[in-house]
């Protein structure tokens, strides 16, 4: 599948929601834990070798499951291949929980669900559809 790599690399250089050096292990048998600079930007998780400017790779964070694996570790698995887990090791429990929280909330789907909920609550409380003033109340993604 083709993707616009250059633009994705450019995105990886933008200010991040969260960034830290973590231990990271890929999902394949034989993958080992490596130190990576991990950056959360919009719904992507970029990971870099600690001394390099261009990312080794990116994970799109849609349709994924984040799980606490240990005191200080969490995993990301994608729903289409749930047994393959990317493992991340943090330096503290607090950091681990913060990353889990941030990643869960980093998906477009998550935002969409929030938006739908807020919309219906506002409508329930005020009788008005808050999306009408923006002219977007009919868009399918907000139903």
């Amino acid at each position: 599948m083709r993707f616009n790599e250059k633009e994705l690399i450019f995105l990886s250089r933008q200010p991040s929601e969260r960034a830290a050096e973590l231990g990271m292990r890929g999902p394949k048998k034989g993958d080992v834990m490596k130190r990576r600079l991990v950056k959360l930007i919009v719904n992507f998780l970029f990971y870099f070798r600690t001394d390099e400017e261009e990312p080794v790779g990116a994970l799109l964070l849609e349709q994924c499951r984040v799980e606490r694996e240990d005191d200080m570790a969490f995993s990301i698995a994608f729903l289409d291949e749930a047994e393959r887990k990317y493992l991340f090791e943090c330096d503290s429990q607090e950091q681990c929980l913060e990353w889990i929280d941030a990643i869960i909330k980093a998906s477009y789907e998550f935002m969409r669900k929030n938006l739908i909920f807020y919309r219906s609550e506002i409508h329930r409380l005020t009788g008005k559809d808050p999306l009408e003033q923006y002219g977007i109340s009919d868009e399918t993604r907000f139903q």
Partner: protein
Amino acid sequence: MPPSLRRSAALRVMKLNERSVAHYATCNSPPDKTGFLWKKGERNPTYHRRWCVLKGNMLFYFEERDSREPVGVIVLEGCTVELCDSESEEFAFAIRFDCARARIYKLAAENQVAMESWVKALSRATFDYMRLLVRELERQLEEAQQVALSQQAKNKPKKSQVQGGNGGRSKPTSLQGPLTQPTGSPEEGLLSLIPGKENGVSWNKPAGLSNGVGEGSGVVWEAEGRGDSVRPPPIPPRRKTPGGSLEDPVSPGTGCFSKLHDWYGKEVAELRVEWLQGQ
């Protein structure tokens, strides 16, 4: 160094979880827009008809409408969409990026209406747009809830304001006033109880977390009458104050929530003017 190694160093491609990205394209999450578009080829200049699926900030393109896998995807973050004159195609528009040596993706719709609809949808496909919208609605909801609560207080002058004496139907969290700045820590403690969380699938939350954790917003959830199928999703992330993350978030550098909120409010107001003008 042997030639094969040299070559692979120069051609190093960034990894992407491609299989899962392709799965996202075809999974049952609702697309924002679908339709046929003519897309100018990557290598040759001819236009190919492609079935296009816009989901969030990703534009997938398939060979056929029923193809199981996309030919490719354009990540739309940081792009601008513009109309363009094309010699061979009417109703043409382009997706352009800011970075050096970036590609320009040329597309064409079947008619004027379709073109305008796609241009509108693609310009609003960035994460930031959605995030702004969510925050704006979050703010409106908080306002509406405060109005509702003060109405309640007015209607029950004899009861204390702290406990709504309506038989436990609603569960206010804390009513010490308008939103306190959340720190995220109450959530963390409760999050540790949850073995796994999925973000694209149906959201099952234990009741403990859905009560407006730590936000102090006086949120009133209706515990009954809605059934189990509707649980309020957790509050979207707030910006960390400086020192809480290694880099500045994608927003003006400010740790003050009200300033940040005003900034977003301005952005939304500007967006609104833009849309009204575009109607």
